[in-house]
Protein backbone atom coordinates (compact mmCIF):
# COMPACT_ATOMS: atom_id res chain seq x y z
CA UNK A 1 0.00 0.00 0.00
CA UNK A 2 1.27 3.36 -0.98
CA UNK A 3 0.99 6.08 1.57
CA UNK A 4 -0.55 9.27 0.36
CA UNK A 5 1.50 11.47 2.65
CA UNK A 6 4.13 13.42 0.78
CA UNK A 7 7.48 13.92 2.40
CA UNK A 8 8.41 17.50 2.91
CA UNK A 9 11.80 18.63 1.70
CA UNK A 10 14.11 19.42 4.65
CA UNK A 11 13.68 23.00 5.77
CA UNK A 12 16.84 25.05 6.31
CA UNK A 13 17.31 25.71 10.02
CA UNK A 14 18.47 28.97 11.54
CA UNK A 15 21.87 30.01 10.25
CA UNK A 16 24.57 28.98 12.73
CA UNK A 17 27.19 31.61 13.38
CA UNK A 18 30.68 30.40 14.29
CA UNK A 19 31.55 30.80 17.99
CA UNK A 20 33.43 33.94 18.98
CA UNK A 21 36.24 31.79 20.37
CA UNK A 22 36.67 28.36 18.76
CA UNK A 23 36.70 25.44 21.20
CA UNK A 24 40.22 24.31 20.33
CA UNK A 25 41.61 27.77 21.01
CA UNK A 26 39.70 28.13 24.28
CA UNK A 27 40.97 24.75 25.46
CA UNK A 28 44.53 25.68 24.58
CA UNK A 29 44.23 29.00 26.42
CA UNK A 30 43.04 27.22 29.58
CA UNK A 31 45.89 24.72 29.29
CA UNK A 32 48.46 27.49 28.82
CA UNK A 33 47.12 29.41 31.81
CA UNK A 34 47.67 26.29 33.94
CA UNK A 35 51.17 25.89 32.50
CA UNK A 36 51.94 29.52 33.27
CA UNK A 37 51.01 28.93 36.90
CA UNK A 38 53.35 25.92 37.00
CA UNK A 39 56.29 28.06 35.85
CA UNK A 40 55.24 30.87 38.17
CA UNK A 41 55.38 28.48 41.13
CA UNK A 42 58.82 27.26 40.11
CA UNK A 43 60.11 30.79 39.63
CA UNK A 44 58.58 31.83 42.95
CA UNK A 45 60.50 29.06 44.72
CA UNK A 46 63.67 30.08 42.89
CA UNK A 47 63.28 33.72 43.94
CA UNK A 48 62.74 32.81 47.61
CA UNK A 49 65.89 30.71 47.74
CA UNK A 50 68.00 33.04 45.63
CA UNK A 51 67.09 36.28 47.40
CA UNK A 52 67.55 34.68 50.82
CA UNK A 53 71.02 33.36 49.91
CA UNK A 54 73.95 35.53 51.04
CA UNK A 55 75.87 34.81 47.81
CA UNK A 56 74.68 33.74 44.37
CA UNK A 57 76.00 31.58 42.82
CA UNK A 58 77.29 29.91 46.00
CA UNK A 59 81.04 29.76 46.50
CA UNK A 60 82.74 27.11 44.36
CA UNK A 61 79.83 26.82 41.94
CA UNK A 62 80.20 27.72 38.24
CA UNK A 63 78.55 30.73 36.63
CA UNK A 64 75.85 29.88 34.08
CA UNK A 65 77.04 30.52 30.49
CA UNK A 66 75.24 33.56 29.12
CA UNK A 67 75.93 32.59 25.49
CA UNK A 68 74.11 29.28 25.83
CA UNK A 69 70.97 30.91 27.19
CA UNK A 70 71.05 33.63 24.53
CA UNK A 71 71.60 31.10 21.73
CA UNK A 72 68.68 29.06 22.99
CA UNK A 73 66.50 32.16 23.06
CA UNK A 74 67.45 32.84 19.43
CA UNK A 75 66.62 29.24 18.46
CA UNK A 76 63.22 29.41 20.11
CA UNK A 77 62.47 32.76 18.46
CA UNK A 78 63.41 31.22 15.09
CA UNK A 79 61.06 28.32 15.84
CA UNK A 80 58.26 30.76 16.67
CA UNK A 81 58.86 32.46 13.35
CA UNK A 82 58.78 29.09 11.59
CA UNK A 83 55.44 28.13 13.13
CA UNK A 84 54.03 31.56 12.27
CA UNK A 85 55.15 31.11 8.65
CA UNK A 86 53.61 27.62 8.58
CA UNK A 87 50.29 28.89 9.93
CA UNK A 88 50.10 31.70 7.41
CA UNK A 89 51.00 29.30 4.63
CA UNK A 90 48.28 26.87 5.75
CA UNK A 91 45.73 29.69 5.61
CA UNK A 92 46.87 30.50 2.06
CA UNK A 93 46.91 26.79 1.07
CA UNK A 94 50.63 26.93 0.35
CA UNK A 95 51.90 23.38 0.82
CA UNK A 96 55.58 24.30 0.48
CA UNK A 97 55.22 27.17 2.94
CA UNK A 98 53.77 24.84 5.57
CA UNK A 99 56.61 22.37 5.06
CA UNK A 100 59.24 25.12 5.23
CA UNK A 101 57.83 26.67 8.40
CA UNK A 102 57.39 23.39 10.26
CA UNK A 103 60.88 22.22 9.23
CA UNK A 104 62.39 25.46 10.54
CA UNK A 105 60.60 25.02 13.88
CA UNK A 106 61.70 21.39 14.13
CA UNK A 107 65.33 22.27 13.38
CA UNK A 108 65.23 25.11 15.93
CA UNK A 109 63.86 22.79 18.59
CA UNK A 110 66.57 20.23 17.85
CA UNK A 111 69.25 22.93 18.14
CA UNK A 112 67.79 24.13 21.46
CA UNK A 113 67.82 20.63 22.95
CA UNK A 114 71.36 20.04 21.66
CA UNK A 115 72.69 23.28 23.17
CA UNK A 116 70.94 22.59 26.46
CA UNK A 117 72.39 19.07 26.54
CA UNK A 118 75.90 20.40 25.89
CA UNK A 119 75.43 23.05 28.59
CA UNK A 120 74.26 20.47 31.12
CA UNK A 121 77.25 18.24 30.33
CA UNK A 122 79.68 21.17 30.72
CA UNK A 123 78.14 22.30 34.00
CA UNK A 124 78.10 18.77 35.31
CA UNK A 125 81.78 18.37 34.53
CA UNK A 126 82.39 21.74 36.23
CA UNK A 127 80.89 20.36 39.44
CA UNK A 128 77.27 21.51 39.26
CA UNK A 129 74.97 18.58 39.91
CA UNK A 130 71.67 17.96 41.63
CA UNK A 131 73.34 16.72 44.80
CA UNK A 132 76.57 18.73 44.99
CA UNK A 133 75.30 22.13 43.92
CA UNK A 134 72.82 22.55 46.79
CA UNK A 135 69.78 24.62 45.95
CA UNK A 136 71.68 26.33 43.12
CA UNK A 137 72.10 23.13 41.12
CA UNK A 138 68.70 21.75 42.05
CA UNK A 139 66.90 24.92 41.00
CA UNK A 140 68.82 25.24 37.75
CA UNK A 141 68.17 21.66 36.70
CA UNK A 142 64.53 21.76 37.84
CA UNK A 143 63.73 24.95 35.92
CA UNK A 144 65.63 24.15 32.73
CA UNK A 145 64.58 20.49 32.88
CA UNK A 146 60.90 21.36 33.22
CA UNK A 147 61.22 23.75 30.30
CA UNK A 148 63.11 21.17 28.23
CA UNK A 149 60.32 18.62 28.84
CA UNK A 150 57.82 21.13 27.49
CA UNK A 151 59.96 21.75 24.45
CA UNK A 152 60.37 18.01 23.90
CA UNK A 153 56.57 17.66 23.99
CA UNK A 154 56.04 20.39 21.41
CA UNK A 155 58.95 19.01 19.34
CA UNK A 156 57.21 15.61 19.11
CA UNK A 157 53.96 17.37 18.29
CA UNK A 158 55.61 19.31 15.47
CA UNK A 159 57.31 16.18 14.15
CA UNK A 160 53.83 14.64 13.81
CA UNK A 161 52.66 17.84 12.11
CA UNK A 162 55.52 17.52 9.64
CA UNK A 163 54.35 14.03 8.72
CA UNK A 164 50.82 15.38 8.27
CA UNK A 165 52.12 18.28 6.18
CA UNK A 166 54.04 15.88 3.92
CA UNK A 167 50.72 14.15 3.24
CA UNK A 168 49.13 17.55 2.59
CA UNK A 169 46.60 17.28 5.40
CA UNK A 170 46.29 21.01 6.04
CA UNK A 171 44.06 23.43 4.20
CA UNK A 172 42.65 26.92 4.80
CA UNK A 173 39.60 25.27 6.39
CA UNK A 174 41.57 22.78 8.49
CA UNK A 175 44.75 24.06 10.10
CA UNK A 176 43.83 23.91 13.81
CA UNK A 177 46.68 21.54 14.76
CA UNK A 178 49.25 23.99 13.39
CA UNK A 179 47.57 26.86 15.21
CA UNK A 180 47.54 25.03 18.55
CA UNK A 181 51.13 23.85 18.20
CA UNK A 182 52.05 27.44 17.40
CA UNK A 183 50.34 28.70 20.56
CA UNK A 184 52.24 26.14 22.62
CA UNK A 185 55.54 26.99 20.93
CA UNK A 186 55.05 30.73 21.54
CA UNK A 187 54.35 29.93 25.18
CA UNK A 188 57.55 27.89 25.46
CA UNK A 189 59.51 30.77 23.89
CA UNK A 190 57.98 33.28 26.30
CA UNK A 191 58.69 31.01 29.27
CA UNK A 192 62.34 30.71 28.19
CA UNK A 193 62.57 34.50 27.90
CA UNK A 194 61.64 34.80 31.59
CA UNK A 195 63.91 31.91 32.57
CA UNK A 196 66.79 33.41 30.61
CA UNK A 197 66.46 36.81 32.26
CA UNK A 198 66.09 35.38 35.78
CA UNK A 199 68.65 32.57 35.54
CA UNK A 200 71.31 33.96 33.22
CA UNK A 201 71.06 37.77 33.24
CA UNK A 202 70.09 38.85 36.76
Amino acid sequence: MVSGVMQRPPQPGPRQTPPAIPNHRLGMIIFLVAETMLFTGLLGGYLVLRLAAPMWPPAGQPQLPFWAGAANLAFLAAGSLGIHVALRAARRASHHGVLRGISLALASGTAFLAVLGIEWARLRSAGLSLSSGGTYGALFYALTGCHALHLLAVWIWIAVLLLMAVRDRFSPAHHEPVEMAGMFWHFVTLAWLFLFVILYVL
Partner: protein
Amino acid sequence: MRASSTIRPARLAACASLVYGFRLATASALAQCAMCSGAADASAGQFAFSKSTLMMLSVPYLLLGGVALYVVRAFRRSREKSGGAAGDTDSTGR
Protein backbone atom coordinates in the same frame (compact mmCIF):
# COMPACT_ATOMS: atom_id res chain seq x y z
CA MET B 1 14.46 50.81 29.19
CA ARG B 2 17.38 50.31 31.52
CA ALA B 3 16.89 48.59 34.85
CA SER B 4 17.57 50.45 38.06
CA SER B 5 21.17 50.10 39.30
CA THR B 6 20.33 49.85 43.02
CA ILE B 7 21.64 46.77 44.83
CA ARG B 8 19.02 44.52 46.34
CA PRO B 9 19.39 43.74 50.07
CA ALA B 10 19.36 39.98 49.41
CA ARG B 11 22.28 40.29 47.01
CA LEU B 12 24.13 42.52 49.43
CA ALA B 13 23.66 39.95 52.20
CA ALA B 14 24.86 37.16 49.92
CA CYS B 15 28.01 39.13 49.01
CA ALA B 16 28.71 39.94 52.66
CA SER B 17 28.35 36.30 53.72
CA LEU B 18 30.66 35.28 50.87
CA VAL B 19 33.33 37.74 52.02
CA TYR B 20 32.91 36.64 55.63
CA GLY B 21 33.22 32.96 54.64
CA PHE B 22 36.37 33.73 52.68
CA ARG B 23 37.78 35.58 55.69
CA LEU B 24 37.11 32.57 57.93
CA ALA B 25 38.79 30.21 55.44
CA THR B 26 41.85 32.45 55.30
CA ALA B 27 42.08 32.63 59.09
CA SER B 28 42.12 28.83 59.42
CA ALA B 29 44.76 28.56 56.69
CA LEU B 30 46.95 31.08 58.52
CA ALA B 31 46.55 29.16 61.79
CA GLN B 32 47.80 25.97 60.12
CA CYS B 33 50.78 27.69 58.56
CA ALA B 34 52.57 28.80 61.71
CA MET B 35 55.93 27.46 60.55
CA CYS B 36 55.68 29.25 57.21
CA SER B 37 54.69 32.41 59.01
CA GLY B 38 57.64 32.05 61.37
CA ALA B 39 60.06 31.49 58.50
CA ALA B 40 58.71 34.51 56.66
CA ASP B 41 59.13 36.68 59.74
CA ALA B 42 62.84 35.85 59.97
CA SER B 43 64.80 38.88 58.81
CA ALA B 44 66.97 36.97 56.31
CA GLY B 45 64.07 35.56 54.39
CA GLN B 46 61.61 38.39 54.82
CA PHE B 47 62.71 40.30 51.74
CA ALA B 48 62.87 37.11 49.66
CA PHE B 49 59.43 35.95 50.76
CA SER B 50 57.77 39.29 50.13
CA LYS B 51 59.29 39.70 46.66
CA SER B 52 58.42 36.16 45.68
CA THR B 53 54.89 36.45 47.04
CA LEU B 54 54.41 39.69 45.13
CA MET B 55 55.52 38.03 41.91
CA MET B 56 53.36 34.95 42.42
CA LEU B 57 50.37 37.07 43.38
CA SER B 58 50.60 39.33 40.36
CA VAL B 59 50.70 36.58 37.72
CA PRO B 60 47.13 35.24 38.19
CA TYR B 61 45.74 38.77 37.97
CA LEU B 62 47.75 39.45 34.82
CA LEU B 63 46.54 36.18 33.32
CA LEU B 64 42.94 36.87 34.25
CA GLY B 65 43.15 40.38 32.82
CA GLY B 66 44.77 39.17 29.62
CA VAL B 67 42.26 36.38 29.05
CA ALA B 68 39.34 38.69 29.87
CA LEU B 69 40.63 41.25 27.39
CA TYR B 70 40.99 38.58 24.72
CA VAL B 71 37.48 37.23 25.35
CA VAL B 72 35.92 40.71 25.24
CA ARG B 73 37.73 41.55 21.99
CA ALA B 74 36.78 38.21 20.43
CA PHE B 75 33.10 38.66 21.28
CA ARG B 76 33.12 42.25 20.06
CA ARG B 77 34.71 41.20 16.77
CA SER B 78 32.23 38.36 16.39
CA ARG B 79 29.30 40.69 17.02
CA GLU B 80 30.61 43.21 14.49
CA LYS B 81 31.01 40.45 11.94
CA SER B 82 27.50 39.08 12.49
CA GLY B 83 26.08 42.62 12.51
CA GLY B 84 27.79 43.30 9.20
CA ALA B 85 26.38 40.08 7.74
CA ALA B 86 22.88 40.99 8.94
CA GLY B 87 23.29 44.42 7.37
CA ASP B 88 24.21 42.81 4.07
CA THR B 89 21.17 40.55 4.22
CA ASP B 90 18.89 43.49 4.89
CA SER B 91 20.27 45.49 2.03
CA THR B 92 19.57 42.71 -0.47
CA GLY B 93 16.09 42.36 0.88
CA ARG B 94 16.41 38.60 1.46
